[in-house]
């Protein structure tokens, strides 16, 4: 599903965020990307979502080389990727329902089908009762779950998350991780950037470790102690 081949990213000003990074994540796998802050986790996810372009190397998603995706085709690619952010990035002036509905509106899904799928997604994250509320009335953990519902409502084949549990206590963090595991079990490829090592250890999944933009370890699920 995801292939990085000798990918480097140098930001303007000469900072090397990623250096000759190569790895592959097969379809349907769940993997973590970890490392201290500044190791290149966020840059890796930004390259996948085409928020940034690599300086060197080839990235492909679902067999499609991202270098061949022109500016006009970027929205179409992003619609195939569900994104979860640390600060959830919900629109605070719209209801939970309207927030989750956005990807379907962008994808021009008909209204009846939209409500059905929004409700299904909200039910999956256990927030169906809150559909008419504004995000500000929810707790941090609930807001993050709304963000996850928004990421999965359009049934993306790839789900990427940037520090999705960064602001949550361990109990809530485990609940969020359980949700990601559920989506992976339905066939979605899941890539999570996180520096929460205790949590990653408990998940017992593949872990890609970055340090100063270089791959220093790629541990399979069995190797994670």
């Amino acid at each position: 599903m995801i292939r990085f081949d000798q990918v480097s990213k140098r930001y303007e000003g000469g900072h090397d965020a990623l250096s000759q990074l190569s790895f592959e994540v097969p379809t349907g796998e769940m993997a973590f990307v970890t490392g201290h802050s500044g190791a290149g986790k966020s840059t890796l996810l930004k390259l996948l979502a085409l928020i940034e372009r690599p300086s060197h190397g080839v990235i492909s998603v679902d067999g499609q080389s991202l270098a061949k995706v022109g500016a006009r085709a970027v929205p179409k690619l992003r619609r195939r990727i569900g994104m979860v952010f640390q600060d959830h990035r919900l629109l605070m002036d719209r209801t939970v329902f309207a927030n989750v509905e956005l990807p379907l509106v962008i994808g021009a899904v008909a209204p009846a089908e939209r409500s059905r799928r929004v409700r299904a997604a909200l039910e999956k994250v256990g927030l169906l009762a809150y559909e008419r509320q504004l995000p500000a009335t929810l707790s941090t953990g609930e807001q993050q779950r709304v963000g996850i519902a928004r990421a999965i409502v359009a049934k993306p084949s790839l789900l990427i998350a940037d520090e999705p549990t960064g602001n949550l206590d361990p109990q809530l963090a485990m609940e969020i991780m359980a949700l990601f595991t559920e989506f992976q079990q339905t066939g979605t490829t899941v890539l999570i950037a996180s520096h929460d090592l205790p949590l990653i250890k408990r998940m017992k999944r593949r872990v890609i470790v970055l340090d100063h933009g270089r791959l220093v370890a790629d541990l399979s699920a069995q190797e994670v102690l």
Partner: protein
Amino acid sequence: MSPSHEAAAPRTAREQPRRFASWREHHGWSAAASLRRLAGRPVGTLLTVAVMGLALALPLAFWLLLGNVQKLGDALGQQQAVSVFLQPGQGSSVAQLMATQLRERPEVAEVRLKTPQQGMDELAKMQGFSGALHALDNNPLPYVLEVQPKPGAGADAVASLVADLRGLQGVDMVQDSGAWRQRLDALLAVGTRVVLILAAMLALAVLLVVGNTVRVDIASRAEEIGVLLLLGASRAFVRRPYLYAGIWYGLFSGVLAALLAVAIELVLAQPVAELSRAYDGSLQFGSLPPWLLLSVPLAAAALGWLGARLVSARQLRRAA
């Protein structure tokens, strides 16, 4: 239908309605979303619409005024005759004689003789005069000759006719409405030009108001725009609600302007009706034509769309 044809046709046939459906879906959502946003901050929206509506109503009001002055001029123009007031005391025989002589002049089309009694009757029909007239013991009005120049007679010929009339024995006063009419026409031409310039300037003002409102709106929604782009929205999708907002602002202010114009008409209707009665009902109140009232909201909506379009491309690049 051949098999190959069958294989190709259904796909395009299915694809076309789907593309149309999603286009319709996007536009419907954008139109409704922008309308909800405007309704979400009613005070700001009402103020913007009021400013634009008043700006658009102003040229309409001037147009109304101008149209009615024109009508007034037309109504008076029918009596474009030169009025010759005889000195008081000049009797019927003098007036008759003078009328016969004048009819023989080549530049004169017609001469109508108005007796003091006829003049009195006319005055009596005008509002407010009848009481005053009853108080008079005798009729103070003179004989009046209404001299109608031939339609072909030039301004010079009419002027020399007027000069001759002024020199006639027994004439008290000559009133020439021709020169007055000429001045009115010139004034109306200036007025029309002023209304056009005013309309153009106020249309520009409307464009700027919409543009600025949408610009501020986009700037305050930079975060939302960022989220939409991350979720895979195209730039056209992000921009569309702002274009619809421009259309709504224009449409509502155009409707307001048309309503204001109708209100001005209603307010003016009664005094104009009285004025009309004073002119034997020959003066009709000229209201704005329906096509104009209908086209104002449409034109304003187009202006709003244009204003939003002009700022949104630039502003969105900055926001995202």
